[in-house]
Protein backbone atom coordinates (compact mmCIF):
# COMPACT_ATOMS: atom_id res chain seq x y z
CA UNK A 1 0.00 0.00 0.00
CA UNK A 2 1.25 3.44 -0.86
CA UNK A 3 1.06 6.11 1.75
CA UNK A 4 -0.65 8.80 -0.31
CA UNK A 5 -3.55 6.53 -1.21
CA UNK A 6 -5.27 7.17 2.11
CA UNK A 7 -5.37 10.93 1.69
CA UNK A 8 -7.04 13.33 -0.69
CA UNK A 9 -4.20 14.10 -3.10
CA UNK A 10 -3.33 17.70 -3.90
CA UNK A 11 -1.13 16.51 -6.71
CA UNK A 12 -1.01 13.05 -8.21
CA UNK A 13 0.77 11.06 -10.88
CA UNK A 14 -0.79 7.85 -12.12
CA UNK A 15 1.29 5.49 -14.20
CA UNK A 16 3.46 8.42 -15.22
CA UNK A 17 6.06 7.57 -17.84
CA UNK A 18 8.60 10.03 -19.21
CA UNK A 19 10.91 9.24 -22.11
CA UNK A 20 13.91 11.19 -23.35
CA UNK A 21 14.47 9.63 -26.77
CA UNK A 22 15.00 5.90 -26.21
CA UNK A 23 15.69 6.36 -22.48
CA UNK A 24 12.82 5.79 -20.06
CA UNK A 25 13.49 8.34 -17.32
CA UNK A 26 10.31 7.59 -15.36
CA UNK A 27 8.56 4.26 -15.62
CA UNK A 28 4.85 4.00 -14.73
CA UNK A 29 5.18 5.91 -11.46
CA UNK A 30 2.20 6.33 -9.13
CA UNK A 31 2.56 9.07 -6.53
CA UNK A 32 -0.13 10.88 -4.58
CA UNK A 33 0.85 13.99 -2.63
CA UNK A 34 -1.47 15.25 0.10
CA UNK A 35 -1.54 18.84 1.32
CA UNK A 36 1.11 19.64 3.92
CA UNK A 37 3.23 16.55 3.33
CA UNK A 38 7.03 16.63 3.38
CA UNK A 39 8.29 14.05 0.95
CA UNK A 40 11.91 13.21 0.19
CA UNK A 41 12.88 11.58 -3.09
CA UNK A 42 15.98 9.46 -2.83
CA UNK A 43 17.90 7.28 -5.23
CA UNK A 44 21.16 7.19 -7.13
CA UNK A 45 22.06 9.69 -9.84
CA UNK A 46 19.89 9.01 -12.88
CA UNK A 47 17.23 7.22 -10.84
CA UNK A 48 14.53 9.68 -11.96
CA UNK A 49 14.24 12.01 -8.95
CA UNK A 50 14.58 15.24 -10.94
CA UNK A 51 12.34 13.92 -13.70
CA UNK A 52 9.68 13.02 -11.13
CA UNK A 53 9.76 16.57 -9.72
CA UNK A 54 9.60 18.03 -13.24
CA UNK A 55 6.70 15.72 -14.11
CA UNK A 56 4.85 16.82 -10.96
CA UNK A 57 5.36 20.44 -12.03
CA UNK A 58 4.27 19.68 -15.59
CA UNK A 59 7.62 20.73 -17.07
CA UNK A 60 8.09 17.48 -19.00
CA UNK A 61 5.44 15.84 -21.18
CA UNK A 62 4.22 12.43 -20.06
CA UNK A 63 4.65 9.63 -22.60
CA UNK A 64 2.12 7.63 -20.58
CA UNK A 65 -0.10 7.95 -17.53
CA UNK A 66 -1.61 11.14 -16.20
CA UNK A 67 -1.07 14.06 -13.84
CA UNK A 68 -3.97 15.13 -11.68
CA UNK A 69 -4.38 18.13 -9.43
CA UNK A 70 -6.97 19.18 -6.89
CA UNK A 71 -7.94 22.52 -8.44
CA UNK A 72 -4.95 24.52 -9.62
CA UNK A 73 -2.42 24.51 -6.79
CA UNK A 74 0.35 27.09 -7.03
CA UNK A 75 3.58 25.16 -7.58
CA UNK A 76 7.10 26.58 -7.36
CA UNK A 77 10.39 24.81 -7.95
CA UNK A 78 13.95 25.45 -6.84
CA UNK A 79 16.79 23.86 -8.79
CA UNK A 80 20.22 22.65 -7.72
CA UNK A 81 21.91 25.52 -9.55
CA UNK A 82 19.47 28.42 -9.57
CA UNK A 83 19.47 30.67 -12.60
CA UNK A 84 20.12 34.28 -11.66
CA UNK A 85 19.62 36.82 -14.42
CA UNK A 86 22.12 39.66 -14.89
CA UNK A 87 19.87 41.88 -12.81
CA UNK A 88 19.57 42.85 -9.17
CA UNK A 89 18.60 40.25 -6.59
CA UNK A 90 15.27 42.01 -6.11
CA UNK A 91 14.56 41.98 -9.87
CA UNK A 92 15.41 38.27 -9.91
CA UNK A 93 12.88 37.64 -7.16
CA UNK A 94 10.30 39.84 -8.88
CA UNK A 95 10.65 37.88 -12.13
CA UNK A 96 8.25 35.10 -11.15
CA UNK A 97 5.71 37.65 -9.91
CA UNK A 98 6.05 39.62 -13.13
CA UNK A 99 5.36 36.48 -15.13
CA UNK A 100 2.27 35.92 -12.96
CA UNK A 101 1.16 39.47 -13.90
CA UNK A 102 1.31 40.75 -10.32
CA UNK A 103 1.07 44.59 -10.33
CA UNK A 104 4.39 46.40 -9.96
CA UNK A 105 3.86 47.88 -6.48
CA UNK A 106 2.68 44.58 -5.01
CA UNK A 107 5.53 42.80 -6.79
CA UNK A 108 8.13 45.00 -5.13
CA UNK A 109 6.57 44.59 -1.72
CA UNK A 110 6.32 40.82 -2.00
CA UNK A 111 9.86 40.50 -3.35
CA UNK A 112 11.31 42.55 -0.49
CA UNK A 113 9.25 40.61 2.04
CA UNK A 114 10.55 37.33 0.58
CA UNK A 115 14.14 38.60 0.67
CA UNK A 116 13.71 39.62 4.30
CA UNK A 117 12.31 36.15 4.96
CA UNK A 118 15.49 34.48 3.68
CA UNK A 119 17.81 37.08 5.25
CA UNK A 120 18.87 38.71 1.99
CA UNK A 121 17.15 42.11 2.22
CA UNK A 122 20.53 43.84 2.50
CA UNK A 123 21.62 42.24 -0.79
CA UNK A 124 18.51 43.29 -2.74
CA UNK A 125 20.37 45.85 -4.84
CA UNK A 126 23.31 43.62 -5.76
CA UNK A 127 23.56 41.74 -9.05
CA UNK A 128 22.11 38.24 -8.56
CA UNK A 129 24.98 36.43 -10.21
CA UNK A 130 27.66 37.80 -7.92
CA UNK A 131 26.09 36.34 -4.78
CA UNK A 132 27.69 33.26 -3.24
CA UNK A 133 26.21 29.84 -4.02
CA UNK A 134 24.37 29.71 -0.71
CA UNK A 135 23.00 33.23 -1.15
CA UNK A 136 21.86 32.44 -4.69
CA UNK A 137 20.03 29.39 -3.40
CA UNK A 138 18.37 31.50 -0.70
CA UNK A 139 17.43 34.07 -3.37
CA UNK A 140 15.93 31.21 -5.42
CA UNK A 141 13.96 30.12 -2.34
CA UNK A 142 12.77 33.72 -1.93
CA UNK A 143 11.76 33.77 -5.61
CA UNK A 144 9.77 30.57 -5.10
CA UNK A 145 8.30 31.63 -1.74
CA UNK A 146 7.22 35.03 -3.12
CA UNK A 147 4.86 33.14 -5.44
CA UNK A 148 3.01 31.92 -2.32
CA UNK A 149 3.23 28.31 -3.43
CA UNK A 150 1.07 25.54 -2.06
CA UNK A 151 3.61 23.02 -3.33
CA UNK A 152 7.37 23.61 -3.25
CA UNK A 153 9.52 21.28 -5.33
CA UNK A 154 13.21 21.29 -4.44
CA UNK A 155 15.68 19.54 -6.70
CA UNK A 156 18.80 18.81 -4.64
CA UNK A 157 18.79 22.38 -3.35
CA UNK A 158 21.84 21.93 -1.12
CA UNK A 159 23.93 19.58 -3.26
CA UNK A 160 26.54 22.15 -4.30
CA UNK A 161 26.65 24.18 -1.08
CA UNK A 162 29.13 24.30 1.78
CA UNK A 163 27.97 22.98 5.17
CA UNK A 164 26.95 26.35 6.61
CA UNK A 165 24.98 27.35 3.49
CA UNK A 166 23.46 23.86 3.48
CA UNK A 167 22.25 24.39 7.04
CA UNK A 168 20.77 27.80 6.22
CA UNK A 169 18.83 26.48 3.24
CA UNK A 170 17.67 23.44 5.17
CA UNK A 171 16.41 25.62 8.03
CA UNK A 172 14.42 27.74 5.57
CA UNK A 173 12.90 24.68 3.91
CA UNK A 174 11.92 23.39 7.35
CA UNK A 175 10.28 26.72 8.16
CA UNK A 176 8.37 26.78 4.87
CA UNK A 177 7.14 23.25 5.51
CA UNK A 178 6.08 24.26 9.04
CA UNK A 179 3.92 26.99 7.46
CA UNK A 180 1.91 24.27 5.74
CA UNK A 181 3.56 24.39 2.33
CA UNK A 182 3.70 20.93 0.79
CA UNK A 183 7.36 20.15 0.19
CA UNK A 184 8.94 17.57 -2.09
CA UNK A 185 12.72 17.48 -1.96
CA UNK A 186 15.17 15.29 -3.82
CA UNK A 187 18.35 14.71 -1.89
CA UNK A 188 21.41 12.49 -1.55
CA UNK A 189 21.84 13.62 2.02
CA UNK A 190 20.16 11.00 4.18
CA UNK A 191 20.61 13.09 7.32
CA UNK A 192 18.71 15.89 5.62
CA UNK A 193 16.01 13.41 4.56
CA UNK A 194 15.66 12.31 8.17
CA UNK A 195 15.44 15.90 9.41
CA UNK A 196 13.05 17.28 6.78
CA UNK A 197 10.81 14.52 5.48
CA UNK A 198 7.85 12.69 6.90
CA UNK A 199 7.74 10.30 3.97
CA UNK A 200 10.43 8.88 1.70
CA UNK A 201 10.07 7.78 -1.91
CA UNK A 202 12.85 5.58 -3.28
CA UNK A 203 13.48 5.50 -7.03
CA UNK A 204 15.72 3.26 -9.09
CA UNK A 205 16.10 3.33 -12.89
CA UNK A 206 12.96 5.44 -13.18
CA UNK A 207 10.80 3.08 -11.13
CA UNK A 208 9.30 3.92 -7.76
CA UNK A 209 10.31 1.02 -5.52
CA UNK A 210 9.40 2.27 -2.05
CA UNK A 211 7.04 4.88 -0.65
CA UNK A 212 7.13 4.72 3.14
CA UNK A 213 7.16 6.88 6.29
CA UNK A 214 10.63 8.23 7.04
CA UNK A 215 11.10 6.11 10.17
CA UNK A 216 10.32 2.95 8.28
CA UNK A 217 12.69 3.89 5.46
CA UNK A 218 15.60 3.91 7.88
CA UNK A 219 14.48 1.01 10.07
CA UNK A 220 13.09 -1.26 7.35
CA UNK A 221 11.84 -3.58 6.15
CA UNK A 222 12.26 -2.31 2.61
CA UNK A 223 12.52 -3.84 -0.85
CA UNK A 224 15.96 -5.34 -1.45
CA UNK A 225 16.99 -2.59 -3.93
CA UNK A 226 16.33 0.15 -1.35
CA UNK A 227 18.19 -1.81 1.32
CA UNK A 228 21.19 -2.07 -1.01
CA UNK A 229 21.05 1.72 -1.57
CA UNK A 230 21.01 2.34 2.18
CA UNK A 231 23.98 0.00 2.63
CA UNK A 232 25.84 2.16 0.12
CA UNK A 233 25.72 -0.32 -2.74
CA UNK A 234 24.60 2.17 -5.35
CA UNK A 235 22.87 0.75 -8.39
CA UNK A 236 25.05 2.29 -11.12
CA UNK A 237 24.19 1.45 -14.68
Amino acid at each position, binding site marked *: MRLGDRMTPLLELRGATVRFGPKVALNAVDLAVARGERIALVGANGSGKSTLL*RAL*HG*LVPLAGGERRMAGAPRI*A*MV*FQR*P*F*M*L*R*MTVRANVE*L*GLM*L*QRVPRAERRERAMHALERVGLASEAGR*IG*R*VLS*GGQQQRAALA*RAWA*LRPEVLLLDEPTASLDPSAKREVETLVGEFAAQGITVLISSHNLGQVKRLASRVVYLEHGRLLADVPTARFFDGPLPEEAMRFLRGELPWD
Partner: protein
Amino acid sequence: MNPFLDSLATAARLVADRDPQLLHIVGLSLSVSGIACLVATALGLLAGAMIAVWRFPGRSGVIVVLNTLLALPSVVVGLIVYLLLSRAGPLGAWGILFTPAAMVIAQSLLVTPIVAALARQTIEDAMRDHGEQLRSLGATRLECALIIAWDERLAILTLALMAFGRAVSEVGAVMMVGGNIAGVTRVMTTAIALETSKGDLPVALALGFVLLGVVLVLNVVIGALRGWRIRGDREAGVLP
Protein backbone atom coordinates in the same frame (compact mmCIF):
# COMPACT_ATOMS: atom_id res chain seq x y z
CA MET B 1 58.07 62.67 -52.91
CA ASN B 2 56.79 59.08 -53.02
CA PRO B 3 53.33 59.10 -54.69
CA PHE B 4 51.96 56.83 -51.97
CA LEU B 5 53.18 59.06 -49.15
CA ASP B 6 51.94 62.07 -51.09
CA SER B 7 48.48 60.51 -51.28
CA LEU B 8 48.61 59.71 -47.59
CA ALA B 9 49.44 63.33 -46.73
CA THR B 10 46.59 64.66 -48.89
CA ALA B 11 44.22 62.13 -47.34
CA ALA B 12 45.20 63.21 -43.84
CA ARG B 13 44.62 66.86 -44.82
CA LEU B 14 41.15 66.10 -46.20
CA VAL B 15 40.20 64.38 -42.94
CA ALA B 16 41.73 67.12 -40.81
CA ASP B 17 40.02 69.89 -42.83
CA ARG B 18 36.66 68.10 -42.57
CA ASP B 19 36.13 68.32 -46.30
CA PRO B 20 32.34 68.85 -46.85
CA GLN B 21 32.12 66.24 -49.61
CA LEU B 22 33.93 63.74 -47.41
CA LEU B 23 31.69 64.52 -44.45
CA HIS B 24 28.55 64.03 -46.56
CA ILE B 25 29.74 60.66 -47.79
CA VAL B 26 30.70 59.54 -44.29
CA GLY B 27 27.39 60.79 -42.86
CA LEU B 28 25.34 58.97 -45.50
CA SER B 29 27.34 55.77 -44.98
CA LEU B 30 26.82 55.82 -41.23
CA SER B 31 23.11 56.64 -41.45
CA VAL B 32 22.28 54.05 -44.14
CA SER B 33 24.22 51.30 -42.35
CA GLY B 34 22.96 52.43 -38.94
CA ILE B 35 19.31 52.20 -39.99
CA ALA B 36 19.95 48.87 -41.76
CA CYS B 37 21.60 47.59 -38.60
CA LEU B 38 18.61 48.62 -36.44
CA VAL B 39 16.16 46.97 -38.84
CA ALA B 40 18.31 43.82 -39.06
CA THR B 41 18.69 43.62 -35.27
CA ALA B 42 14.92 43.88 -34.71
CA LEU B 43 14.02 41.38 -37.44
CA GLY B 44 16.97 39.06 -36.81
CA LEU B 45 16.43 38.96 -33.06
CA LEU B 46 12.75 38.14 -33.46
CA ALA B 47 13.44 35.46 -36.10
CA GLY B 48 16.34 34.02 -34.09
CA ALA B 49 14.25 33.88 -30.91
CA MET B 50 11.34 32.21 -32.69
CA ILE B 51 13.56 29.57 -34.30
CA ALA B 52 15.31 29.01 -30.95
CA VAL B 53 12.13 28.23 -29.01
CA TRP B 54 9.70 26.68 -31.48
CA ARG B 55 9.92 23.16 -32.78
CA PHE B 56 8.34 22.86 -36.22
CA PRO B 57 8.75 20.55 -39.21
CA GLY B 58 11.71 21.61 -41.33
CA ARG B 59 13.38 23.54 -38.50
CA SER B 60 16.78 21.91 -39.12
CA GLY B 61 16.53 22.91 -42.78
CA VAL B 62 15.75 26.50 -41.81
CA ILE B 63 18.81 26.57 -39.53
CA VAL B 64 21.06 25.21 -42.31
CA VAL B 65 19.72 27.86 -44.72
CA LEU B 66 20.17 30.58 -42.09
CA ASN B 67 23.76 29.53 -41.41
CA THR B 68 24.43 29.44 -45.14
CA LEU B 69 23.10 32.99 -45.46
CA LEU B 70 25.87 34.13 -43.08
CA ALA B 71 28.15 34.01 -46.12
CA LEU B 72 25.65 35.70 -48.43
CA PRO B 73 27.58 37.62 -51.14
CA SER B 74 26.61 41.27 -51.13
CA VAL B 75 26.39 41.43 -54.92
CA VAL B 76 23.76 38.67 -54.86
CA VAL B 77 21.70 40.68 -52.36
CA GLY B 78 22.21 43.75 -54.55
CA LEU B 79 21.02 41.84 -57.59
CA ILE B 80 17.90 40.50 -55.85
CA VAL B 81 16.94 43.91 -54.45
CA TYR B 82 17.68 45.50 -57.83
CA LEU B 83 15.32 43.05 -59.54
CA LEU B 84 12.63 43.61 -56.91
CA LEU B 85 12.84 47.42 -57.06
CA SER B 86 13.51 47.91 -60.77
CA ARG B 87 10.67 49.41 -62.78
CA ALA B 88 9.58 45.99 -64.09
CA GLY B 89 10.00 44.32 -60.69
CA PRO B 90 7.22 43.51 -58.20
CA LEU B 91 8.13 46.53 -56.03
CA GLY B 92 8.94 48.83 -58.93
CA ALA B 93 5.94 51.03 -58.12
CA TRP B 94 7.69 52.18 -54.95
CA GLY B 95 10.14 54.09 -57.15
CA ILE B 96 12.98 53.87 -54.66
CA LEU B 97 15.72 52.28 -56.76
CA PHE B 98 18.90 54.42 -56.64
CA THR B 99 17.85 56.05 -53.37
CA PRO B 100 19.23 55.62 -49.84
CA ALA B 101 16.03 53.70 -48.98
CA ALA B 102 16.96 50.98 -51.48
CA MET B 103 20.43 50.84 -49.93
CA VAL B 104 18.91 50.40 -46.46
CA ILE B 105 16.74 47.54 -47.74
CA ALA B 106 19.71 45.83 -49.39
CA GLN B 107 21.96 46.13 -46.35
CA SER B 108 19.16 45.04 -44.01
CA LEU B 109 18.67 41.87 -46.10
CA LEU B 110 22.40 41.29 -46.08
CA VAL B 111 22.89 41.47 -42.31
CA THR B 112 19.56 40.18 -40.94
CA PRO B 113 20.68 36.54 -41.37
CA ILE B 114 23.85 37.32 -39.38
CA VAL B 115 21.85 38.63 -36.42
CA ALA B 116 19.20 35.87 -36.74
CA ALA B 117 21.69 32.98 -36.93
CA LEU B 118 23.88 34.17 -34.08
CA ALA B 119 20.95 35.27 -31.90
CA ARG B 120 19.31 31.85 -32.40
CA GLN B 121 22.49 30.13 -31.25
CA THR B 122 22.90 32.44 -28.24
CA ILE B 123 19.26 32.10 -27.14
CA GLU B 124 19.09 28.35 -27.79
CA ASP B 125 22.23 27.67 -25.73
CA ALA B 126 20.89 29.74 -22.84
CA MET B 127 17.44 28.12 -23.16
CA ARG B 128 19.04 24.68 -22.86
CA ASP B 129 20.65 25.74 -19.59
CA HIS B 130 17.95 27.90 -18.06
CA GLY B 131 14.70 27.59 -20.04
CA GLU B 132 13.19 25.06 -17.67
CA GLN B 133 13.76 27.27 -14.64
CA LEU B 134 12.03 30.15 -16.39
CA ARG B 135 9.13 27.92 -17.41
CA SER B 136 8.86 26.74 -13.79
CA LEU B 137 8.20 30.40 -12.90
CA GLY B 138 5.35 30.50 -15.40
CA ALA B 139 7.07 31.86 -18.52
CA THR B 140 5.78 30.83 -21.94
CA ARG B 141 8.39 29.77 -24.52
CA LEU B 142 8.38 33.20 -26.14
CA GLU B 143 8.67 34.92 -22.75
CA CYS B 144 11.63 32.63 -21.98
CA ALA B 145 13.31 33.72 -25.23
CA LEU B 146 12.68 37.40 -24.54
CA ILE B 147 13.96 37.16 -20.95
CA ILE B 148 17.06 35.34 -22.15
CA ALA B 149 17.61 37.88 -24.96
CA TRP B 150 17.44 40.63 -22.32
CA ASP B 151 19.82 38.70 -20.08
CA GLU B 152 22.20 38.26 -23.03
CA ARG B 153 21.86 41.91 -24.01
CA LEU B 154 25.60 42.46 -24.19
CA ALA B 155 25.96 39.52 -26.56
CA ILE B 156 23.05 40.84 -28.64
CA LEU B 157 24.58 44.32 -28.71
CA THR B 158 27.82 42.76 -29.91
CA LEU B 159 25.85 41.05 -32.69
CA ALA B 160 24.30 44.37 -33.68
CA LEU B 161 27.74 46.00 -33.85
CA MET B 162 29.07 43.11 -35.93
CA ALA B 163 26.10 43.55 -38.27
CA PHE B 164 26.86 47.27 -38.53
CA GLY B 165 30.51 46.50 -39.32
CA ARG B 166 29.46 44.13 -42.10
CA ALA B 167 26.95 46.65 -43.51
CA VAL B 168 29.20 49.70 -43.46
CA SER B 169 32.07 47.87 -45.17
CA GLU B 170 30.16 46.15 -47.99
CA VAL B 171 30.24 47.62 -51.48
CA GLY B 172 28.44 45.27 -53.88
CA ALA B 173 24.85 45.73 -52.72
CA VAL B 174 24.91 49.52 -52.26
CA MET B 175 26.67 49.97 -55.59
CA MET B 176 23.97 48.02 -57.45
CA VAL B 177 20.86 49.48 -55.80
CA GLY B 178 22.24 52.92 -54.96
CA GLY B 179 24.04 53.64 -58.20
CA ASN B 180 26.82 55.63 -56.48
CA ILE B 181 25.21 58.97 -57.37
CA ALA B 182 27.29 61.89 -56.07
CA GLY B 183 25.59 63.68 -53.21
CA VAL B 184 22.66 61.24 -53.20
CA THR B 185 23.72 57.62 -52.81
CA ARG B 186 27.50 57.82 -52.68
CA VAL B 187 28.82 56.12 -49.56
CA MET B 188 32.35 55.42 -48.37
CA THR B 189 32.83 52.05 -50.05
CA THR B 190 31.36 53.05 -53.42
CA ALA B 191 33.32 56.32 -53.34
CA ILE B 192 36.56 54.43 -52.64
CA ALA B 193 35.86 52.11 -55.60
CA LEU B 194 35.10 55.08 -57.89
CA GLU B 195 38.02 57.29 -56.84
CA THR B 196 40.43 54.38 -57.15
CA SER B 197 39.21 53.65 -60.68
CA LYS B 198 39.65 57.37 -61.50
CA GLY B 199 43.17 57.31 -60.07
CA ASP B 200 42.29 59.88 -57.37
CA LEU B 201 44.05 58.00 -54.63
CA PRO B 202 44.12 60.71 -51.92
CA VAL B 203 40.32 60.87 -51.70
CA ALA B 204 40.07 57.06 -51.83
CA LEU B 205 42.69 56.78 -49.10
CA ALA B 206 41.03 59.43 -46.94
CA LEU B 207 37.75 57.54 -47.12
CA GLY B 208 39.62 54.32 -46.46
CA PHE B 209 41.07 55.85 -43.28
CA VAL B 210 37.65 56.91 -42.06
CA LEU B 211 36.20 53.47 -42.83
CA LEU B 212 39.09 51.79 -41.06
CA GLY B 213 38.57 54.15 -38.13
CA VAL B 214 34.86 53.26 -37.91
CA VAL B 215 35.63 49.52 -38.02
CA LEU B 216 38.40 50.01 -35.46
CA VAL B 217 36.09 51.86 -33.05
CA LEU B 218 33.48 49.11 -33.52
CA ASN B 219 36.01 46.41 -32.70
CA VAL B 220 37.23 48.28 -29.65
CA VAL B 221 33.63 48.60 -28.40
CA ILE B 222 32.92 44.91 -29.15
CA GLY B 223 36.10 43.92 -27.33
CA ALA B 224 35.21 46.11 -24.36
CA LEU B 225 31.70 44.65 -24.18
CA ARG B 226 33.07 41.11 -24.37
CA GLY B 227 35.62 41.87 -21.68
CA TRP B 228 32.97 43.45 -19.46
CA ARG B 229 30.74 40.39 -19.84
CA ILE B 230 33.57 37.93 -19.16
CA ARG B 231 34.62 39.93 -16.08
CA GLY B 232 31.02 39.90 -14.85
CA ASP B 233 30.70 36.15 -15.36
CA ARG B 234 34.07 35.56 -13.73
CA GLU B 235 33.05 37.56 -10.67
CA ALA B 236 29.84 35.52 -10.59
CA GLY B 237 31.85 32.30 -10.74
CA VAL B 238 30.26 31.30 -14.08
CA LEU B 239 33.72 31.32 -15.68
CA PRO B 240 36.98 30.16 -14.05
